[in-house]
């Protein structure tokens, strides 16, 4: 079972998140979508704790949920994919604000979750990722063989 544990904090991922947050704070919110073409955009993420587990909501309008890649490694959940441009080619465009192209977000998993039971679904442009709590550990009886 993949389980986040202390001591395996991926600094790179957190560092990236940190700088992204700094950028978000200091950048004027007027043009959030105009990131360079190569640089992935960061869709907004909400994280909730529920009695059943951790609930992560990612705003991904126009993205087919089945084409989103969700991976967990070292206590960090990575959500990535590409949002296709859905309008006509550039010459006819007049005004563009919506982000397209590659996107990536990383969410540190602060609570223990059962990744084997994780479920994700897309609805109305919102990707919902459910990470249930691991089942309570059963007291285990160790059989003693004699003979």
């Amino acid at each position, binding site marked *: 079972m993949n389980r986040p544990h202390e001591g395996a904090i991926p600094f790179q991922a957190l560092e990236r998140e940190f700088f992204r947050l700094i950028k978000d704070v200091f950048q004027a919110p007027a043009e959030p979508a105009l990131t360079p073409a190569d640089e992935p955009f960061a869709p907004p993420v909400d994280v909730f704790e529920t009695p059943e587990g951790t609930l992560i909501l990612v705003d991904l309008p126009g993205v087919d949920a089945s084409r989103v890649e969700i991976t967990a490694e070292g206590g960090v959940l990575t959500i990535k994919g590409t949002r296709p441009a859905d309008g006509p080619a550039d010459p006819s465009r007049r005004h563009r604000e919506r982000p397209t192209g590659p996107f990536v977000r990383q969410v540190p998993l602060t609570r223990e979750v059962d990744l084997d039971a994780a479920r994700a679904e897309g609805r*109305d442009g919102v990707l919902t990722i459910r990470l249930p709590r691991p089942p309570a550990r059963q007291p285990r009886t160790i059989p003693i063989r004699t003979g």
Partner: protein
Amino acid sequence: MSEAHPSIRVPLGPSSTPPAPSGDAAAGEVPPLARPTITPPIDIHDGPEGLTLEADLPGATEENLIIQLEHNVLSLDARLVAPAPEGARPIHQEFPLGDYHRSFILSDDVDRERITAELKNGVLKVFLPKADRARARRIEIKS
């Protein structure tokens, strides 16, 4: 706003039937002040038949989205419902629960009776067809 111009609600869906004018309660709804207003990002592109407007409205549904045309102002409003179940504790929130709002001034070239809208996967597409008089600019010259 004068009563002489009742607002027009644009029906969602690919149908091209002209919207029925209605001056009902939905026209004057004002969201409570406690909820933040979110300005959705939009794209507008021009085509031979008219303008296409696309807005990112994640979480919006046909039930909570209202598109209105009042005078020459087209407005989009959607009231989001809480995405998380009761009792969920927010750990990190970047997308406040609020109301989408954005409005546009339409030129006279838009045929208001044939505006159509479609909502799919959190993306709203509004097609604003050009009025015939704006499309046909060729003038026959009789000799």
